């Protein structure tokens, strides 16, 4: 298995931020606006709070097992056989599914908005090749890449916000709490699962850091930064587009970018989405890869990059027969993510440790 990554707290912060932004940056404002209308940005604030709560829970698991990753934690809490089963289910039913859905989302976005005549397979396979390559060269390279890209993401985000300041109409967000608080809570509960209940996957990376004492802060600020950026985007989408158009648009942030009156600047702004989604894909693909490798006690993990990429490619087509179905899945994803993102960490926190450690990694 891979040598210790020795991630620094700053790198961990960047990975968490970019992971949480990926995909959600495209669809979250629209999803929140469906139910909570002009109060979607308040729902986004609630989503941050739920995300921080989930992070606090998962961080509790990390503090209980600071030197162990999820596969080892499973073995210690559930025992050898049940731990194997728990790890297998987690990596196949959760992280692998997220990889397939994220790549499908990215492919759909490119086909729908930029190059409609290009086959979906061509676009997705190019991204799959990139994530396979990143797994082959090692995760350290991806963390350095994310460090290089992070300032670009922040700069493009600031440019997007500044360019839209003049387009904002504060009347669009009024009246506040027009439909009461219930729809806001409902929207926040539905959509906090994606992406903020996926914090649990960082248990595979948190033990790889060399500044363990700073990891909590990095994790907290990663969730907070991505949450604040998503809230600002939701606020801008509502105030520029209005609640109805935000709700109707498939990708509200792209519609936002189209409001900037400088040529086809939305394509440059799209770099923001490509970088964040790509880093998200690299992280989740790597986590699935090393998770499966450690669960099955393979010697190394890089040899499995191509076969896993192949399966992701097929799952992407099998799981989501058409892009409309993806939005159908988002409606239930929050509840599904709750099982892995909240119930599962609670079990890891509450259940006592086994005395005989037969961890698969031992």
């Amino acid at each position, binding site marked *: 298995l891979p040598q210790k990554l020795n991630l620094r707290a700053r790198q961990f912060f960047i990975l968490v931020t970019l992971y949480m932004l990926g995909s959600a940056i495209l669809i979250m404002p629209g999803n929140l606006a469906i139910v909570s209308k002009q109060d979607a940005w308040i729902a986004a604030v609630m989503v941050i709070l739920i995300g921080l709560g989930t992070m606090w829970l998962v961080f509790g698991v990390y503090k209980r097992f600071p030197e162990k990753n999820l596969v080892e934690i499973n073995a210690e809490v559930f025992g050898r056989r049940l731990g194997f089963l728990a790890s297998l289910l987690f990596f196949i039913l959760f992280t692998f599914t997220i990889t397939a859905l994220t790549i499908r989302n990215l492919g759909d976005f490119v086909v729908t908005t930029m190059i409609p005549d290009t086959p979906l397979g061509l676009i997705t396979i190019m991204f799959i090749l990139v994530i396979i390559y990143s797994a082959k060269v090692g995760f350290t390279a991806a963390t350095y890449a994310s460090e290089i890209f992070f300032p670009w993401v922040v700069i493009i985000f600031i440019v997007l916000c500044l360019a839209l300041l003049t387009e904002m109409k504060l009347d669009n967000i009024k009246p506040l709490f027009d439909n009461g608080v219930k729809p806001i809570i409902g929207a926040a509960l539905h959509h906090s699962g994606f992406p903020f209940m996926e914090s649990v996957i960082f248990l595979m990376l948190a033990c790889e850091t060399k500044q363990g004492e700073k990891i909590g802060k990095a994790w907290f600020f990663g969730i907070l930064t991505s949450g604040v950026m998503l809230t600002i985007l939701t606020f801008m989408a509502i105030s520029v587009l209005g609640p109805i158009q935000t709700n109707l648009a498939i990708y509200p942030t792209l519609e936002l970018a189209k409001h900037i009156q400088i040529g086809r600047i939305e394509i440059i702004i799209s770099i923001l989405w490509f970088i964040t989604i790509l880093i998200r894909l690299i992280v989740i693909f790597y986590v699935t890869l090393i998770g499966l490798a450690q669960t*099955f006690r393979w010697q190394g993990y890089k040899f*499995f990059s191509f076969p896993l990429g192949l399966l992701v490619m097929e799952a992407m087509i099998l799981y989501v027969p058409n892009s409309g179905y993806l939005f159908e899945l988002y409606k*239930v994803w929050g509840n599904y993510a709750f099982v892995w993102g909240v119930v599962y960490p609670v079990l890891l926190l509450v259940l006592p440790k086994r005395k005989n450690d037969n961890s698969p990694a031992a």
Partner: protein
Amino acid sequence: LNVFSLVMLTLMCLFSLLEIVPLWKKKLRKEMAAIFSCVSVAILLPILYRTLKIDFNPMNGLVWLFRPVANWIDRIFM
């Protein structure tokens, strides 16, 4: 799946199978079996779906299982 995707899938299968060479030299059987099973699934799945006209999507199970919870949340908060 169009022709291009099929070509790319075939190429990826070949690349996956190429990974077996170094594993063969080190006699890592478990790892070789993992690659073989993945490639077999990747090849057999589309063939089975086409020939037997199976309309099974694992995600439907997820929707079936969690839709009642989503509806329950909707009833309370909407």
